[in-house]
């Protein structure tokens, strides 16, 4: 997924000299090819994220296409007001890449973990929020982000979980991607975003009758497709490496509540910070969103 990111970035930058990658002194190794082939299109802005976003806004006002890269604990969390006022208020074409979302930096602790970013960015008008689940979704999301010429937050979570899709995708902003329909009499589908899509695949192996839907575009989201999903299922289980407040689960509940009584179970991170240090898998266990915990929870739902 990271290789796809680097390659796609280089493609975008090579096609338009006005594309500038701004990094807040992050992205070790990630920008080697860009820095080698298009050195003038990479600017290390230093450990100064507020200025980075303001500068990106200024650059976009004079014809540039800034891509702002940071860890999602900082971009967007630390610079929320700059994103709101400097960029989104004027609908400027700035792409924000928030890398390492969720518990990727499991050993580093709360300062580098980001489980509230979807909730807070969702409430900012004009901001598109994308959350790809594998390299194919990522490539499409990067195209959509660039082609939109609008403010975009691209949330990148755990990137080494492998492919879910098997070929290039052509979804549009807002589209849900149905990978599998529920085969049970009582129709139950997992709705997953980002890193939890691959987890959803694993759960479908344990519970073959489950349906599986990916949501790479959290905002906008196609309400008709959500409505269809609610009609064709009896129960939805949303799955995200993000707080249960304000993320994917909330999005589905908000939309469904106006027309449906469908049962929705929101699975994500409860209202707490990480207590312990450990591997990524360990942190998932701590927050009960590892495979075994999820199997138990889904078994109880079924």
């Amino acid at each position, binding site marked *: 997924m990271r290789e796809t990111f680097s390659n796609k970035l280089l493609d975008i930058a090579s096609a338009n000299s006005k594309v500038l990658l701004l990094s807040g002194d992050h992205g070790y190794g990630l920008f080697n090819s860009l820095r080698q082939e298009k050195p003038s299109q990479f600017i290390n802005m230093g450990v100064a994220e507020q*200025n980075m976003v303001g500068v990106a806004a*200024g650059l976009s006002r004079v014809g540039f296409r800034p891509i702002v890269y940071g860890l999602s604990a900082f971009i967007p969390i630390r610079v929320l007001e700059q994103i709101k006022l*400097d960029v989104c208020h004027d609908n400027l074409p700035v792409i924000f890449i928030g890398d390492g979302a969720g518990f990727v930096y499991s050993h580093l602790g709360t300062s580098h973990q980001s489980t509230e970013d979807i909730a807070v960015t969702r409430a900012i008008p004009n901001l598109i929020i994308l959350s790809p689940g594998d390299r194919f979704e990522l490539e499409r999301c990067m195209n959509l982000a660039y082609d939109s010429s609008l403010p975009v937050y691209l949330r990148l979570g755990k990137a080494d979980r492998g492919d879910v899709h098997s070929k290039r995708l052509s979804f549009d902003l807002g589209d849900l991607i149905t990978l599998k329909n529920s085969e049970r009499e009582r129709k139950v589908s997992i709705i997953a975003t980002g890193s939890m899509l691959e987890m959803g695949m694993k759960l479908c192996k344990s519970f073959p009758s489950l349906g599986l839907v990916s949501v790479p575009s959290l905002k906008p989201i196609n309400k008709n497709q959500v409505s269809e999903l609610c009609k064709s299922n009896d129960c939805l289980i949303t799955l995200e490496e993000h707080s249960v407040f304000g993320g994917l689960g909330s999005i589905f509940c908000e939309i469904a509540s106006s027309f449906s009584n469908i049962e929705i179970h929101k699975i994500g991170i409860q209202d707490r910070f990480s207590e312990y240090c450990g591997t990524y898998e360990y942190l998932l266990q701590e927050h009960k969103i590892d495979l075994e915990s999820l199997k138990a929870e889904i078994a109880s739902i079924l």
Partner: protein
Amino acid sequence: MSSAKNLIPKKIRRNILDMAFSGSTVHIGCALCLVEIFSVIYRNHLRYDYTKPDDPNRDFLILSKGHGVMAQYACMKELGWLKDSDLLNYFSDGTKLKGLSDSRVRGLEVTSGSLGHGLSVGVGIALGNKISQTKQKTFIIVGDGELNEGSCWEAIQFAGHHALSNICMIVDKNNFQAMDKTSNIINQQNLATQIEAFNFNVTEVDGHNEDDLDNAINDLFSLQNNKPSCIVANTIKGKGVSFMENKNDWHYLRLDKALYEQALLELE
């Protein structure tokens, strides 16, 4: 006839008072201290098309200290970008001119007032213009109180490091901020020296002396040593109205009819 020649400080101050009285607004002192800074920049330095305030080839004038926006509106009225009715209906329901700078108003560049934003946006504009090798300049007005914001210093160090010589930052040093004297809150000793240390050319002038401001801008841009420019403009909060000068309550007080008329008398 609208023209930059109309940008006469007394007239601009009267416009500010008209707005402040019509809208019963606060932040009057914050605007009165900016008058000569705006008049000199609009009249003598900023290159722009009167008929198209958003012309892409313009120089940029950014009010990072959004609380002084009435001074900019007052100038925009003289430039023909606002009408008398815009000033006299200030703060009426459904009108566009807000109490802080808002980028959606034609002629204003940034949304500010939450402080510490405009400087970075201006630095980004200047960086873009440097990369594109245009001759466009960016003037950015910040408040001395605003320099409490860490983001300002992020922008200052970046502008210095990247040798953004197409920037002129003007610090409106009126020595007050919302609640008190700046020296009682975060004392900024030797502000000029501090900014100079970030690789800026810095000049300190009387911010109400148009000739001095004019000369300072010319001198700084003529240095040609690849540094951004900064003018520390020593100003008086509430300048031009005796009962407002250095009276920080006029950050928040509103004009009644008697005081409005008294203030106008001082500006005849």
